[in-house]
């Protein structure tokens, strides 16, 4: 989780990612950020996020994002 928070903070240093659950709904992460995030997750966690997983429910919070990464890693 710490590694993920580091990646997120690198994208937006001014955002507190631990307490937010509206990253997509509030427009904090745009589509460019999401693609950067997918590339980072691919290289750091060795987990491939397919296009169908790019939905607000998976990207609205760091917790949801981490849960998705774990689920995909288990598959």
């Amino acid at each position: 989780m710490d590694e993920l928070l580091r990646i997120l903070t690198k994208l937006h240093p001014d955002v507190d990612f631990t307490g937010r659950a509206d990253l997509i709904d509030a427009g904090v992460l745009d589509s460019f950020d999401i693609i950067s995030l997918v590339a980072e997750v691919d290289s750091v966690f060795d987990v491939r996020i397919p296009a169908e997983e790019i939905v607000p429910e998976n990207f609205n919070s760091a917790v949801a994002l981490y849960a998705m990464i774990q689920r995909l890693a288990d598959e």
Partner: protein
Amino acid sequence: MLFTSYAFVAFVAVVAVLYYVLPKKAQWPLLLLASYVFYFIAGPSFLIYITATVVSTWYAGLRIGRIGAAHAADAEAGKATRSKEDRKAVKAKAKAKAKAKQRAWLVACLLFNFGILAVVKYSNFAIFNVNSLLAAFGSPDKLSFLTIALPMGISFYTFKTMSYLIDLYRGKFPAERNVFRLALFTSFFPQLVQGPISRFDDLSKSLFEEHRFDRRVVLSGLQRILWGFFKKLVIADRILAGVTTLIKNPDQYTGAFVLVGMLFYALQLYADFTGGIDITIGISEMLGIKVAENFNAPFLSRNITDYWRRWHITMGTWFRDYIFYPMSVAQPMLRLSRWCREKLGEGFGKRVTVYMATIVTWFATGIWHGSSWNFIAWGLANGFVIILSHECEPLYKRFHARFHWKGKPAYTAFEVVRTVLLMSSIRLFDCYRDVPLTFRMFGTMFTTFNYGRLFDGTLLKIGLSGADYAVLGVGLAVLIGSRVVKDRTGDFRERLAAGPAWVRTAATFALILAILVLGAYGIGYDAKQFIYNQF
């Protein structure tokens, strides 16, 4: 049968009455019949195209569903017979095999349907370009243009059905077994002409469930329809004469008149397209069917990205979900990104794939709008501005760190005006429909200083009289006023529905009266085509 024709109003009235009079089980079959009648009136031969799309998508969907079900059954059976370690590897292998089979059906169906779209919509554009190349090389040979009529709404219904198939392939929902239900999803007449491009899981529930007559719901839908007619007939069709004069005479109307034409066209397109969508959503609402919203005050956007989140939302999300994201996160693109990061630097590696996907997505968005270079230029210009604004973000951040203007009303107003001017400028490609001419006319805004002529009476000789400007002023004031009321007090129609019956009735009649009195009719009135019908 145009939305603003008397025939269409009568058609909707008959369908609505039958919808609530007939047994509830007959509601969706009635809508299917009505949709096919509507499409038949538009062009009997068009039925062949839409039926081919429905049947091919339905069959491919069934096959994809069956492969998925067979794979799930195998995986279940394997659970009892294999060890835990084996199970994971076997499961992954079987899943990959099933996915490959499903992908074959998906790709075949996508090729078939986008192939139809390509042939009917883009053949002549391809022939035009081949002929231009032949002429450039001095060849006297020329290919003949095809005489194929473009089926009404083909871009919209193809995108709708292909989203159904891709979502099904992605496991979002099971396959629709009833071909007639898929036929209604594809051909639902209120959204056949200009969208919104609904998703199957979003529309299907309310489309197929039974609805009982609810006076408030029907009246609310009727009010939304009237609001759409108001925008279309009072604003869009009235300003049309002025837009046409300014755009069709580029030698006569340069400089300041390009700016006026550009802003007039922005208003016309907004009123025309959102008005059409209001009519679509209103008819659906009358029938108890929930259709996705397509706009969210786009002219209050503060930058281009924000604008594309608010304008033609269902089209934007379609390109995002089915082109931009899949292309950006495809393995070869991620590998390219990684390679570029290692060899050419972190910043370049991060940008390269996203920008490539942006350009491809906007190229596709442009050509979706029309088979000509001006639409491609329009799409690429949008992509270019999005990339440019992304590149300028560090500059903006430094600017805002130094000047604390962000969020202040005056600066927000500046951002809104800037976005309106920027988006309207890009739309000049759509106005003049000729790329070199568009650049030339855009340039005259800065080189021909004839802004004084805006006040010498010329604007009263472009097909718009003083009375027309007065009506447009009223229309614009109502448009802006309705938004202000919505922002301050919530949805106006919801408040109206909660209020006394006489207020609801009075408001409805006031809207009807405004359309009848202020609408652009007159001698020889002919219902004007909606701009987005042609896409």
